[in-house]
């Protein structure tokens, strides 16, 4: 029960993060690398869990799902700044405008 839930959670988190990073980092390749790094970090954590003698019970599953958030953090920021360096300024302004509009309209709703 625990293992399928873990696999499902990690996969879903990677897919959803890919979609979200596709919105915020306007490059499909960057979002692909973000998702790849999430899955890779989770696999590394699973491997180290066996090495350090942590069983995959419900507790460690919850921790694993929590730690997806941490693993998103660095990779998303790094790839976003990578894109913001290489993307031109006006295009970034365009996306910022879109994000501002989204925020405003979500407030109105």
């Amino acid at each position: 029960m625990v293992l399928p839930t873990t696999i499902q959670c990690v996969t879903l988190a990677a897919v959803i993060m890919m979609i979200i990073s596709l919105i915020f980092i306007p490059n499909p390749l960057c979002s692909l690398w973000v998702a790849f790094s999430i899955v890779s970090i989770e696999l590394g954590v699973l491997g180290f869990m066996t090495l350090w003698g942590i069983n995959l019970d419900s507790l460690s599953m919850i921790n694993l799902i929590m730690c997806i958030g941490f693993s998103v953090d660095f990779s998303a920021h790094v790839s976003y700044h990578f894109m913001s360096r290489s993307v031109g300024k006006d295009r970034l302004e365009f996306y910022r405008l879109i994000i501002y509009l989204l925020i405003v309209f979500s407030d109105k709703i």
Partner: protein
Amino acid sequence: MYALGMPVVQGACSTIIGVIGLAMAPSYIFITFFKMVFLVIVLGALHGLILLPVLLSLFGPGACDRSGSKKAGLSQAASCDNQNVDVVVSPQQAVVVSVSNGKLAAQYHPQSENHHYPYPNGKKHQQVKLNGTPLRKQILWRDSSIVLQNGSAHGPGKYSTSQHMYEIKIPRPKHGPLNGHGHGQGQGHLHGNGHANGSAGSCSNHSYSQSNGGSRASSRPRSSSASPAPLATPKTGPIPYGRQKLSVPVETSVGIKLREMYTNRAFVCEDDFRRHQRALQ
């Protein structure tokens, strides 16, 4: 990555320090929590600091000019519309920048037979040496449009750039500044940009590049100390070789400020420097 590397390290370290307290608790829950958070932070920091920049520079956006970005080491600034810029650092910290996208390096001043640009036309891969140490061949220009006007014949240097920032990375010369006494080949190869073509210009100053590489440039007779350099500079004429104009301050005659020699960065102008600093924040 210059701006982002240190915050990532700091964030990882602070998170681990904050979580260390959990490791001392005798409960299985807390120890498990600490172990997993520690693992995730360390692995995430390694991914973000090492794996992702490598992957993004190799296969990410702007990897179309892959060989050029590798050579220049400016992988963050790599984009598809880059131009190749040759930079020669002179001992007087003058910078010769030639936007060599095929158009600019091919410029040849018609009024002087002796004047030839030190780089062969159209050749992008050029070995530029300073005192025997090879400089980096290509330095990626961030944007495709740049207009640099050589105003040394017209007074203080003028430059007009587009709205983007430029960053030139110049490797620090290993040896000290060579004074150019012994070599007859030491010459300030100046590139008079009298043509107001408007599209792009070249901005150059006296630079004692000892060997410029390039078969064509070295095979041609250079204006050495034997050939007297013209003293007076006509307005549109070629800018003379030689050392007689070395007292001209670099920043006013070239318009390129070699910003920080020891951080290997030069910025085209003050506004670009400020803009770059703003963009880093």
